[in-house]
């Protein structure tokens, strides 16, 4: 099923967090975070994962980057399972850019020191080469050389995010996971960073997995989009088609909820907004309680994936 062209793929990926019920109760309860997900990413493509807080998108992303071990399932990078990579080899292929640019920099290290780490440990360069690489990358992300000897707290959010981008690029990894790349930034700075990410992708032939709760941000940099709800992917589609015609009622609800200037949101005001209980997930469709299209059947049977053209969705009554 895996395409040879896929630079990254994951099959039946799940993550459950288990917790003992009590001090003397050995029985453990499972908390469902990510449930049986399949992902594939092509070279030079950018794939968006959109969903609300608690849907498992960050857990998914951290598993892909090797920061969290999955409970079950397999992740392959360049057709090689990530467990088959040498101990410190994986970061050469996949990198993760964190949401909060300031807290992802060590407060007691200068920017130069932070940027030198991947070069020293991943690429094993000597001091001279390190200096050369850093000076060239800092131009690439539009920062000044004099910033290098400063400490993280001296930077604005936008500048710190550029430093984060620089560090990720220095590893020469081709796959980059962007976790909410602009949500911590000021509105007027967001578009600068999004454009920079777009330009760098072309220049260095990168593949992105972009995680965001903001549909507009996802749309601006992604080719393909997956919509996540309660640990599951409910819809996969080309970005363009998804926004023109969302099939899954949840995607539709997300799109309709985005506030747009001079346009009132029209949604039912008394609709349930709570996610189901992750310890005791529902038998049927997890979106059942909030769905506009629901029927009796949805309550008991969890819909499996339907393929229609190059779109996939999990719903019995899609908005087609």
């Amino acid at each position, binding site marked *: 099923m895996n395409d040879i062209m896929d630079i990254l793929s994951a099959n039946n990926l799940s993550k459950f967090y288990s917790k003992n019920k009590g001090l003397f109760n050995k029985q453990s309860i499972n908390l469902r975070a990510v449930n049986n997900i399949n992902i594939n990413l092509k070279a030079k493509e950018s794939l968006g994962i959109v969903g609300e807080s608690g849907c498992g998108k960050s857990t998914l992303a951290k598993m892909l980057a090797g920061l969290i071990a999955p409970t079950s399932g397999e992740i392959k990078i360049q057709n090689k399972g990530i467990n088959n990579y040498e101990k410190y080899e994986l970061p050469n292929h996949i990198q993760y850019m964190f949401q909060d640019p300031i*807290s992802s920099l060590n407060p007691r290290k200068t920017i130069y020191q932070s940027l030198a780490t991947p070069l020293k440990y991943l690429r094993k360069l000597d001091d001279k080469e390190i200096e050369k690489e850093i000076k060239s990358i800092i131009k690439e992300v539009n920062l000044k050389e004099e910033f290098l000897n400063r400490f993280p707290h001296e930077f604005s959010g936008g500048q710190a995010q550029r430093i984060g981008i620089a560090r990720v690029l220095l590893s020469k990894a081709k796959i980059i996971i962007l976790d909410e790349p602009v949500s911590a930034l000021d509105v007027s700075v967001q*578009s600068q960073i999004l454009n920079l990410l777009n330009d760098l992708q072309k220049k260095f032939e990168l593949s992105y997995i972009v995680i965001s709760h903001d549909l*507009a941000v996802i749309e601006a940099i992604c080719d393909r989009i997956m919509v996540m709800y309660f640990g599951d992917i409910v819809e996969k589609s080309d970005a363009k088609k998804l926004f023109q015609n969302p099939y899954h009622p949840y995607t539709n609800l997300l799109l309709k*909820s985005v506030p747009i200037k001079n346009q009132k*949101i029209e949604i039912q*005001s008394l609709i349930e907004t709570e996610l189901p209980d992750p310890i005791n997930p529902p038998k049927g469709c997890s979106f059942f309680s909030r769905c506009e299209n629901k029927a009796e059947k949805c309550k008991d049977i969890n819909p499996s994936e339907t393929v229609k053209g190059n779109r996939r969705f999990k719903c019995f009554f899609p908005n087609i």
Partner: protein
Amino acid sequence: MINFLKLISRNKLALFGGILLIIIFVVSFLSPLLPLKDPDVIKTSDRFLLPFSEGYLLGTDHLGRDLLSRLLWGTRLSLLVGISAALISATIGSILGTIAGFYGNKTDNVIMRVIDVLMAFPYILLALAIVAVLGPGLFNAMIAVALVNIPFFARNIRGVTVTIANKEFIDAARLSGMSNFKIIVYEIFPNILPVIVVTISTTVGWMILETAGLSFLGLGSQPPQADLGSMLGEGRSSLIVNPHTSYVPGAMIFLIVIGVNLFGDGIRDALDPRLSKGELVKPQPVTQIKLDNNVENNNNSFLSVKNLTTAFNFNNKLNLASKGVSFDIKKGECLGLIGESGSGKSVTALSITCLVASPPGVIVNGSVKFQGNDILKMNYEQIRELRGNKISYIFQDPLSTLHPLIKIGKQLEETFIEYNHQKNKEAVLKGKELLKLVQIPNIENVWNSYPHELSGGMRQRVSIAMALTNDPELIIADEPTTALDVTVQAQILSLLDTLRKERGLSVLFISHDFGVVSQICDRVIVMYGGQIVEEGKTENIMSKPRHPYTSQLMECVPHIGFGKRKLLTILGSPPSITYKKEIGCSFASRCLIKKDNCLNEDIKIVRKGDSEVRCLYPHE
């Protein structure tokens, strides 16, 4: 380093402690070089001489030994032993604590349980047991004191390490190919070093005391060697007849411990990031108000803010956060306040009821007239009477505004009882009615829950209910939906809109999002660099912004429905709050249509029809 010394010397007591310590250190460590008598030479003919006797400045002990010499030699020894013990236990304790905190799970469990067992013994008993096993002697006493204090360091450092190990920069280091060992050494250690130093500085005095304690019991230094503890022990037998043999070493111990503790506190104050940021300074209940001149405000709208200027006082320099903000809100109107970080929007909102934390906040100019009375001229009691009553707030993050340890119901009751002085019964009724009003399902359940048990949307509904408790007339909502998911945001916005219309509430709604403001506001103010740059009816500003900042900002916000593309941008980043006075338009450096004269003069806000704009070349 120089900064650090400056910080310490600002604290007079710490400076005193430091100087005291330096004197004691220098004198005692120079004792081999000083012209002192041999501390161990016995001369029974001179026994129990009083201080200031000829040849013996501090007198002699029961064997006629020179007390001054013994004191200095003894101090030297005690300091050496105490400090070595502190360093040993700091090293071992920190290593254990770091490993436990970093690896977590089983490693953590095993290490910390052993530490807990060590802690369960009374310390002196444990020390005695260790000395009993190893045999008496100063070196063994030092080992005992060091061992006994390991748990203290281990626990402290473990706590700090856990926090740091969960920070994103540790994950980032891992992704840079660093091994766990290198992460601990290069990433974690520099961050816990200040904590280690602080812990050492506050415990070293304690360890000197403990070593002295063991020597006093005869388990530390052995005769004839002198240390402070053994001197005390020897003096004890003649305490009644010749008290000076006990007073002399006693006074020295007192001076050392006092010096260490005062200096240690100073180090802690200087190194603790929370203290140096001023987070532990308790803010006053009302912002400091120092009005330069009286602002004439004859506007009798429901709320009229005129020339409101709020500054932050850092090192006696006033950094202006809002500069002469004027607006008014009519009864039942919803006014939106749009701006980016540093635009002064939140400061303006907080200044209305003098809630800006002081220090460092100061209101330096302006007038805030609410229903005809100037809030900035009221006393604390009058302002308090308004807050949460006639004027209430809804903040961005309900998790930090609701009390984490009190149940939702109790918190709602409190708000009600504070102003209505009624029985609990009525408060409960009112509270439940409010929860129903904000469309919370399963009210009984929520009433008995703690804030962390609710979802973000539910918590924000509770905050709204709380804001409505005392039938306010003005609600100030500071980014009330920013922390929420889009679907929840849509619900909360529609709820707020319905409530304010039903109850004729006036709302000041602060946001950075044009889309959100469009949903609920009648009029909009746009702020930039602490000033209002544009004001007008919502639909006019949204469809035809006149200030270049407003229009450029709107264009660069990504909208849905345009696909993958290059976005328009505004160069640079928003100005930060500074104390420097800048002339001209604060947006000029980022403006696409600026001309030379934009920087020559301060630009006045100009009214045209029902809108205002602060620009020499506004869009028409």
